[in-house]
């Protein structure tokens, strides 16, 4: 392969065409997964009968069934929707379930005195959750959430299998033209590694700075 070929592969195809789609997949899935995680995790922490059992079953299914099964199911079952949205739907459902469990765990770790203090000051429930409890939940769960976000970023690669034109798919489509699969897949690996490693680093950084400054050493 010439330098020009490599330029075409890495810059023109993978970075310019593929990466934006991967980033879109990441941000859209992250948005919905966090939404599911925070809202349903909050609901789970309230331990409402029946609702809690249903959410527990949802979490178990997502922990036990491979994402690909869920993705292929939606791809075959839903007649409407692009590959992009079907991928976002599957990834957010699965990752949302994991985040829900993380957030629930965070809620359980918040001291019940925090609720009592809010009660004794007559803070409205919504206010207690959004200003006092949830921020603490998110702060203490930052390490776990960042780990889950890394899983989500890696998980977006399955979108390529149903034809979503992300980094991996763009790379695969280059293979008939440039017969250097090892090198081309290596580029994809490196791109994912950079993204994930950055997120891991960011997680540690946040833990050491923001979380430590606000919540103190015992929570780090």
């Amino acid at each position, binding site marked *: 392969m010439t330098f020009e070929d490599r330029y075409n592969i890495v810059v023109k195809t993978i970075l310019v065409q593929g990466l934006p789609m991967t980033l879109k997949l990441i941000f859209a899935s992250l948005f919905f997964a966090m939404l599911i995680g925070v809202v349903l995790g909050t609901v789970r922490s309230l331990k409402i009968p029946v609702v809690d059992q249903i959410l527990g079953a949802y979490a178990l299914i997502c922990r036990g069934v491979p994402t690909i099964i869920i993705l292929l199911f939606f791809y075959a079952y839903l007649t409407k929707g692009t590959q992009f949205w079907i991928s976002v739907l599957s990834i957010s459902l699965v990752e949302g379930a994991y985040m829900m469990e993380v957030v629930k765990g965070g809620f359980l770790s918040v*001291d019940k*005195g*925090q609720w*009592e*203090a*809010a*009660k*004794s*000051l*007559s*803070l*409205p429930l919504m*206010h207690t959750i959004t*200003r*006092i409890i949830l*921020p*603490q939940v998110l*702060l203490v769960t930052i390490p776990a959430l960042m780990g889950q976000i890394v899983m989500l970023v890696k998980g977006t690669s399955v979108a390529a299998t149903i034809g979503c034109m992300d980094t991996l798919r763009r790379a695969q489509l280059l293979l008939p033209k440039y017969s250097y699969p090892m090198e081309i897949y290596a580029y994809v690996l490196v791109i994912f590694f950079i993204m994930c490693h950055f997120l891991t680093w960011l997680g540690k950084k946040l833990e050491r700075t923001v979380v430590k*400054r*606000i*919540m*103190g*050493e*015992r929570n780090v």
Partner: protein
Amino acid sequence: MSEMSEKKEIVVSLQHVTKQFGSLTVLDDMSLDVYEHEVVVLCGPSGGGKSTLLRTINGLEKIGSGKILYRGTEVNHRNIKEIRKHIGMVFQQFNLFNNLTVRDNLLIAPVKTQKKKKDEMLKKAVEYLEIFGIADKLDSYPHQLSGGQKQRVAIVRSLMMEPDLMLFDEPTSALDPEMIKEVLDAIRRLSSMGMTMVIVTHEMGFAREVASRVCFLEGAKIRVNTDTKTFFEDTEDERLKQFLSVILHH
């Protein structure tokens, strides 16, 4: 009941309050009136129901039967939120909001629930912090404070609501000995300001000094409820005598 106190208004009146956890009775037909400007200390061995009784006053514990009147109005689940705005509560474990600075801990309730002006409240907060000697901690997070400082901030947080009554649930039990004094000094100051207070504490020397009335709770009952002098010097109750001899001479 002395003639003096009858002239004053009753702030909180507990009438035949009973509570059970499963088959265990934790409050057994307890009645207690707290008059304006009075400092009532609840003491007794652990498991006697002191903290539970205190927590029923602002609805943190539900009661099984009996009733609680606040300024003549019966407390129920509908008006409890309104009534809590007039009752300050200080906890054993401080319970400052961990994710908020001292400033936000002090401002959140008055600004959000009482819709007071933020800058006025801030001025007031600073004044209180100065009174209690912690004005330099305005922008600190709770984890940066010592236990004694946390408890003083918690007291100021309650004061920000301009309470009519303050409840203290073992305010010094989680503190190191050298910090107990600073918190007790803060409570003394409130007492000299005429604040009506109900205090659960084991600090009997302190009780003797600030209390106008002391109750001895044991076995889910209020065994003794009398003025401070009688309580310490002239009690007939055998169990109380025993309790005092252990706690005062250890």
